[in-house]
């Protein structure tokens, strides 16, 4: 791919960088306990937590770095951090 | 190529005089160039400005060392600055003074004295001598036509101020012409 003039780029390529591989702990989202407050989505520094059709939330493990903020801040303790199996 | 050096003090309008003489000369069909001796001088300090005249485009960029003409805006400069330095034989020196000269110009150089301050005070109401001296320069050297000087002044100043300056220049022009 030829270089862009002046080291410029359009968005999109950041997603080539699958930061999920950085993870040591993996958040497990328990929809049973979830109150659908969306705090996990709001506070995720990756912006990788998404809402499904029923209003539940799940992380995109391609990008989730496993920081654990979602688990720490979940008011219902519906997210558990578990050792990543690699 | 003919060259003019103007000696004055900061604030007396030496650079403006150089500019207007250059404009008037160009108006008369010769090439001209005007520039100040670039310095950091403040109001009252001795300053110089230069003008060149030629029949072809002027390329030379050095300062003026051997002028054909010298204008001294303020005779008190004569004891501070070697105003006559380098003047060419056959050259003309114009000094603004109301006194008889107690100095001598180099041999073969013509000295013209004129009381430009009194002329300016009468015509303009301010001791701004540069326009009177331009008139004297036009009359003494023939490098610029009075009509061209008039045009340059009209172009440079608002109508009323231009008229006063033209009047001052005319008085000086006539005095020098009459004396010649």
């Amino acid at each position, binding site marked *: 791919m030829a*270089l862009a*003039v*002046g*080291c*410029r*780029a*359009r*968005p999109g390529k950041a997603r080539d960088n699958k930061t999920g591989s950085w993870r040591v702990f993996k958040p497990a989202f328990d929809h049973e306990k979830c109150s659908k407050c969306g705090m996990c989505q709001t506070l995720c520094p990756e912006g990788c937590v998404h809402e499904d059709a029923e209003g539940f939330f799940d992380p995109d493990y391609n990008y989730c770095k496993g920081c654990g903020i979602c688990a720490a801040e979940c008011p219902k303790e519906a997210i558990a951090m578990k050792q990543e199996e690699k | 190529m003919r060259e003019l050096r103007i000696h004055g003090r900061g604030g007396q309008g030496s650079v403006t005089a*150089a*500019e207007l003489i*250059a*404009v008037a000369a*160009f108006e008369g069909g010769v*090439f*001209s*160039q*005007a*520039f*100040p001796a*670039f310095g*950091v001088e403040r109001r009252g300090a001795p300053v110089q400005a230069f003008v060149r005249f030629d029949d072809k*485009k*002027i*390329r*030379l*960029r*050095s*300062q003026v*060392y051997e002028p054909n003409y010298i204008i001294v805006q303020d005779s008190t400069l004569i004891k501070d600055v070697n105003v006559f330095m380098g003047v060419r034989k056959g050259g003309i020196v114009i000094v603004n003074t109301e006194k008889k000269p107690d100095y001598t110009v180099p041999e073969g150089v013509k000295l013209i004295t004129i009381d430009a301050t009194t002329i300016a005070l009468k015509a303009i109401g301010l001791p701004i001598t540069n326009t009177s001296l331009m008139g004297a320069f036009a009359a003494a050297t023939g490098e610029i036509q009075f009509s061209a000087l008039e045009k340059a002044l009209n172009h440079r100043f608002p109508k009323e101020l231009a008229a006063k300056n033209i009047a001052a220049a005319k008085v000086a022009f006539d005095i020098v012409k009459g004396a010649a």
Partner: protein
Amino acid sequence: MMEITEGSHAIAEAVRLCRPQVISAYPITPQTHIVEALADFVANGQLDAEYITVENELSALSACVGASAAGSRTYSATTSQGLMLMAEVCFNAAGMRLPIIMSIANRAMGAPLSIWNDQQDSIALRDSGWLQFYAEDNQEATDLHLLAYKVAEDHAIQLPAFVCFDGFILSHTYEPVDMLTQQDVDKYLPKFNPSERLDAADPISFGMYATPEYYLEFRYEMDQAQKRAKDVIAKAGKEFGAMFGRDYSALIEGYRLEDADTAIVAMGSICGTVKDAIDEMRADGKKVGLLKIRVFRPFPSEEIAKMLSHVKRVAVLDKNISLGAKGATVMEVRDALYGSTIPVKGYVLGLGGRDVRKRNIKEIVELTEKGPEDMFYGLRKELI
């Protein structure tokens, strides 16, 4: 129409006619008259531009970076210390490929503090990626601004440019200049049409960083753009000649050089004095000619080698010095002549406003005949 006007005013007028949309500058002697005139144009509705009165030169050029990236034609002016305060932004603007045009009223670098002319300032930034044009007189200083915009904004180039002219010697001199009209300039210089800009409709990231996998190639691309500029200047300069009668297609110009034994290489306003000195030397039977460098970046190496191929000796005048080495021009001229046996002698002269006269040029020609050792010319022996 020919008009006698101060160099700075002629330049400001030319800039006005180029219709910059954003101007940002900071006052510094001897550039100030230009930006004062432009501020006046804006204040009186003669120029429809945003004029940003910044707090220093760093911000002046930084504002131009922002405005240029946002898609506006931009302009700034500076000199000497101000240019050094912009140095970081200069490299940045070139790397970001933003075609900003900046007037440089060449002035010496402190310390010791000097407001007077030499060309150390722009020469110090020769590696920054900006195109560099040098003017001999105020006509050229004026015209080169149009040429600079045209070349810099060309999509094959996209590099910023300095238009350099000697501080005071040109900026404060009144002389006849053919003042262009808006109609003519509009015909010559199309509207700024950047290949990309900051725009919500097409979000692009500008000024990203490059890892070692990419950086070398980005610098190579800039160098290629500099080299392409030779052809673009030739084309735009020719077009200028066709429209206005003054042809700037050549990066260098010869004066009575065709049959010269001694060639003087010089840049900027000193060329005028050199030409007068040459005429007098020719009248005395001395075969001397001038090679004037109008474009220092891209450097016209091949063109210089070709134009000097027949001379017996070369004297290069540098109003700058790379301390501990040599003048910038003599180093590059020697590089251009590499492999030839023509002796080249470098003269560092005119620094900090030291006046250079015709007699000095004549003496330099005599010294060049004696031997090729580089030297400072015109030193006051009693001081050292």
